[in-house]
């Protein structure tokens, strides 16, 4: 195990320096699929936040008990348990959101941000540091999804969180809420992040 870890540093690295979506380009499948509206993005952010934080706590607690050979299998079982809980919770209390997110909530099981954090961080650090890491990464994921979904919903539908905000300014650019718009918006966003980071 590494010596002292700075909690603040573990927390903030996910926001910008090691942002899971914009810098490490992980978890792009849900990122591209659910950012067609801000509401869907918020649902996905909430689910990922819950799953990532809970999984990191569990993994950091049981890290010494799990044999090296089956660690991935064990992590996946833990992640799948929390994902199923999140999925059932959404289906019970937010049926419309659950329907809009469709298969992308169950698919969090195979989201590489979550498994990646268990393997790279939670399985090597204590509970507190793992929570700081997980919350930071979730927020980084959240920032990226909010940026993407805001761009796509405003340009593609003329609304933000369902509220019309560009009345008459321009005709909504429908391609932005289609899959092609996701790739366009993400490409522009990632190249901008790269530009500012390398300056």
């Amino acid at each position, binding site marked *: 195990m590494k010596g002292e870890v700075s909690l603040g540093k573990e927390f903030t690295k996910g926001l910008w320096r090691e942002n899971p979506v914009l810098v490490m380009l992980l978890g792009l499948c849900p990122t591209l699929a659910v950012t067609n509206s801000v509401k869907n993005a918020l649902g996905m952010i909430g689910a990922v936040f819950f799953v990532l934080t809970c999984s990191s706590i569990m993994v950091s607690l049981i890290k010494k008990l799990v*044999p090296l*050979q089956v660690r991935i299998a064990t992590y996946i079982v833990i992640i799948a348990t929390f994902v199923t809980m999140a999925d059932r919770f959404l289906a019970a*209390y937010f049926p419309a959101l659950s329907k809009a997110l469709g298969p992308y909530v169950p698919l969090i099981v195979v989201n590489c941000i979550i498994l990646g954090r268990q393997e790279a961080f939670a399985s090597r650090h204590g509970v507190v540091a793992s929570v700081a890491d997980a919350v930071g990464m979730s927020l980084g994921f959240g920032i990226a999804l909010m940026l993407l979904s805001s761009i796509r919903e405003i340009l593609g*539908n003329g609304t933000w969180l369902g509220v019309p905000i560009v009345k008459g300014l321009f005709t909504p650019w429908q391609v932005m809420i289609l899959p092609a718009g996701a790739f366009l918006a993400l490409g522009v966003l990632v190249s901008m992040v790269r530009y500012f980071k390398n300056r």
Partner: protein
Amino acid sequence: MKESFKIIVVLTLSALLSGAVLAWFNQFTEARVIENRLAELRKSLSEVVPGMTRYDDLVRERNFALYKVWAGDSVAGYAVEAVGNGYQDKIRVLFGVAPDFSRIYALRVLDQKETPGLGARITEPWYLKGWKNRAATLLVLVKGREATKSNEIQAITGATITSRAVVSIVNKGLVRAKKELSNVLGNDSKGEAK
């Protein structure tokens, strides 16, 4: 040997624990999930058959369902849930029919993944209005003009495939519903004859 034993124990325990946690958690959500589904169906049914107070399931399949809808003690009509291929994916619709199958009361789109701004406009009120009080016979799609006859449905400009798909889903649904009902009625009369 010792190592492989440890692997078996860890994997078995984590799977068992995960199952137990999920079974426990399901208690809190299952009832609400079923309730949500029923409430949604009830809402759609009351939108396509006027005056709905309760309904019976007559047929319930993956791609077809037939409901008998009651208004108080009299039959208000039937509701047909039908599925077919749209432009992108399956389209699932629900429509209400008068008890004598003379006309379609109204139509709702339950599920669709058509192109936003084109095919997806089948969920918009102005399009659904075009389905109000149509003749429950073979429906035809008309393009570039308003529907004048009672069996005509106006197409959405730029979404001919989707418009055509909805009409064909409803036509097939109607045929199937009539067949199912004649079976049910046939069985009933046989029962009475005994």
